[in-house]
């Protein structure tokens, strides 16, 4: 088992290493190597999930590093949530690797791209398999690094340069809180190992505190782009679309939720409430912003933010299994939609404004229908995958916390609206620009993963269809929700949400639209509010440009004035004053010299007669 886990982890690292050292000019070989390693990952993961002894929790660790009393171990913990995430990461990862073969076929820097994907897989698998918080933090940072690398793929554009920098720095802010949380956890509990922590936490619940939980949750806030660190995710769409699909939709952003699940035994009631509330507000806010986005990827990005809010809300309600369930289904339909958008973007020669699309359903049928399945899934159309997980969350919220329920329900309506808006504007009606006129269906590399993901998006919600090992963690919470009342009422409300959204979107966007957003004409103030995204980006930009940078320059000037100037040059000046004083004795005039000579002599005489030794 150990060897399998180690190979699982090291395979993508090896692929990345070989690509970096030898294959920088041979993009095609690098691509194949990367896809092969993704396949290998799937194979090894299957072994870990389904192989022998897989019904027990597998854990193993070795000391990697020791200083004084602190021991850092490197180890694996393959328990039920890890198995679920492992399945998602490896399966969706392989599909996206295959998709990339088609999407990046004419890119000039394929080797760098596939190397980056391999490093990302390595880091993400590290997070999934790690058994202690410090190792999770290590791989956390590495995931941030691979995200930086991949967002900056098109580095000659200023957009990518700024987006990658922003992503890493905002992530670092989250990591700052995470780091503090880990350190305080270590000194409070004496360990960072997850299994030992759960034992200790259950023995002595008074050790934990809301502060500790929130600090650890800072990592989640940074990585999963929750409020207030959500600003990096929309900008991260500057990277290639498969990257957005893999990292910023299916896996990396889900790592935050996974972290929460890993440490859920530490959470106090207040912390859970806060996270639930924050998550649901995010769900609503992001949905509201997505209503007016013109870039297809940005719509999907805000949609991801919104769904992550749902997962956080589920966690906050005390239903981590449902959060993981939604993570899984979301990975399927969001990756599907991102890849679909990638297919569209590729076909329309990198045009990304949805108001320049239209009528693509006739030109790219496979893409269109798979995308439709994704849209239906996310809107919660009954019996698709999204329906099961979303309904579970809404039902749980209705029974446990009505405030969260109302916010989430509003968000669900908005989700349906903007998703159908996206679909109608992109695929229905008449073509609105040159680039979409020349669109053709994409190659099989791109359409095959779409079909597979579409199948998963349809059937992925039936948890009984999965092998037991994958859904082991989800079952307790699913049954808990199943026993809650008000099922029928939820179904009715859900139906209302998606049908209402569909009709609303059809009414406004379904008919032939020009390149101006019709919502702008019909409800201008709402439109303005939505496009402003509540000014988060502006506030942060203002802070950086008007407060932070001038303050730092001010500090530089202060340092120059006071430390360099006053202290250093000042003390040099004082020494110079003494020098001047001494120099003034050297007047060159005989009379001054003779005066001082006489004074000195008199002094000696006085000392000799009055003080000194002579009686």
């Amino acid at each position, binding site marked *: 088992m150990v060897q399998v886990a180690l190979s699982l982890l090291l395979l993508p690292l090896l692929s990345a290493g070989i690509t970096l050292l030898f294959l920088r000019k041979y993009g095609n070989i690098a691509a194949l190597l990367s896809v092969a390693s993704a396949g290998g990952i799937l194979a090894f993961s299957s072994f870990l999930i389904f192989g022998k002894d897989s019904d027990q929790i597998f854990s193993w660790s070795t000391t990697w590093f020791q200083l004084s009393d602190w021991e850092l171990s490197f180890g694996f913990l393959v328990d039920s949530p890890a198995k679920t995430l492992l399945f998602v990461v490896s399966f969706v990862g392989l599909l996206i690797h295959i998709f990339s073969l088609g999407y990046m076929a004419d890119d000039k820097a394929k080797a760098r791209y596939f190397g980056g994907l391999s490093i990302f897989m390595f880091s993400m698998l590290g997070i999934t398999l790690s058994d202690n918080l410090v190792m999770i933090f290590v791989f956390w940072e590495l995931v941030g690094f691979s995200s930086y690398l991949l967002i900056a793929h098109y580095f000659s554009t200023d957009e990518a340069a700024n987006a990658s920098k922003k992503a890493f720095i905002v992530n670092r802010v989250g990591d700052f809180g995470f780091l503090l949380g880990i350190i305080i956890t270590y000194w409070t509990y004496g360990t960072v190992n997850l299994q030992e922590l759960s034992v200790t936490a259950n023995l002595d619940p008074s050790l934990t505190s809301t502060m500790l939980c929130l600090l650890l949750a800072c990592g989640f806030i940074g990585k999963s782009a929750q409020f207030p660190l959500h600003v990096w995710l929309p900008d991260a769409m500057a990277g290639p679309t498969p990257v957005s699909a893999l990292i910023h939709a299916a896996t990396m952003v889900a790592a935050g939720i996974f972290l929460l699940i890993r440490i859920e035994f530490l959470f106090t009631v207040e912390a859970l409430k806060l996270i639930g509330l924050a998550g649901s507000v995010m769900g609503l806010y992001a949905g509201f912003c997505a209503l007016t986005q013109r870039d297809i990827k940005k719509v999907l990005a805000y949609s991801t933010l919104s769904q992550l809010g749902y997962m956080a809300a589920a966690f906050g309600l005390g239903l981590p299994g449902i959060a993981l369930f939604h993570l899984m289904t979301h990975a399927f339909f969001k990756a599907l939609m991102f890849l679909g958008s990638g297919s569209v973007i590729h076909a329309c020669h990198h045009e990304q404004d949805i108001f320049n699309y239209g009528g693509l359903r006739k030109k790219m049928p496979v893409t269109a229908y798979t995308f439709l399945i994704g849209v239906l899934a996310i809107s919660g159309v009954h019996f698709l995958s999204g329906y099961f997980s979303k309904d579970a969350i809404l039902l749980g919220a209705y029974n446990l916390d009505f405030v969260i329920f109302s916010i989430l329900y509003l968000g669900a309506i908005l989700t349906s609206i903007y998703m159908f808006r996206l679909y109608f504007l992109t695929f229905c009606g008449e073509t609105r620009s040159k680039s979409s006129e020349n669109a053709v269906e994409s190659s099989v590399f791109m359409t095959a993963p779409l079909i597979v993901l579409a199948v998963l998006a349809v059937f992925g919600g039936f948890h009984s269809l999965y092998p037991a090992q994958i859904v082991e963690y989800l079952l307790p919470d699913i049954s808990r929700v199943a026993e809650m009342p008000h099922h029928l009422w939820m179904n009715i409300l859900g139906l209302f949400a998606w049908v209402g959204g569909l009709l609303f979107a059809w009414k406004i966007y379904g008919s032939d639209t020009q390149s101006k957003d019709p919502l702008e004409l019909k409800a201008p103030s709402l439109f303005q509010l939505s496009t402003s995204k509540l000014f988060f980006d502006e506030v942060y930009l203002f802070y950086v440009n008007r407060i932070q940078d001038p303050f730092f320059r001010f500090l530089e000037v202060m340092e120059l004035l006071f430390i360099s100037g006053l202290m250093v040059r000042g003390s040099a000046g004082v020494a110079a004053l003494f020098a001047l004083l001494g120099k003034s004795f050297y007047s*060159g005039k005989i009379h001054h010299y*003779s005066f001082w000579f006489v004074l000195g002599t008199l002094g000696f005489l006085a000392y000799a007669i009055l003080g000194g030794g002579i009686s």
Partner: protein
Amino acid sequence: METISPSHYLFLALCLFSIGFFGVLLRRNILLLLMSLELMLNGINLALVTFSRTSLNLDGSIFVFFIMTVAAAEVAVGLALLVALYKKRQSVFSEDMNLVSN
């Protein structure tokens, strides 16, 4: 008329010394400075002779001879230097003898 006591001689010596002292300190002309120096020495000589007479000890007088010898030598050297300085600076005033550019 009172008898002339040693204190009168000492007072005279003090006057001579003081005139010479302030001459050294305040004179501009180097030649006169040297003369004031000699005046100081002479004042000392007088004082020494007085003390020698009052304590009936010949040591003081012997010392006067030494001083006179040294004074003569010193005057010779000093005046030679002064002549050389005059040749260089064309003046005997102390303010012209300043190479230090302060």
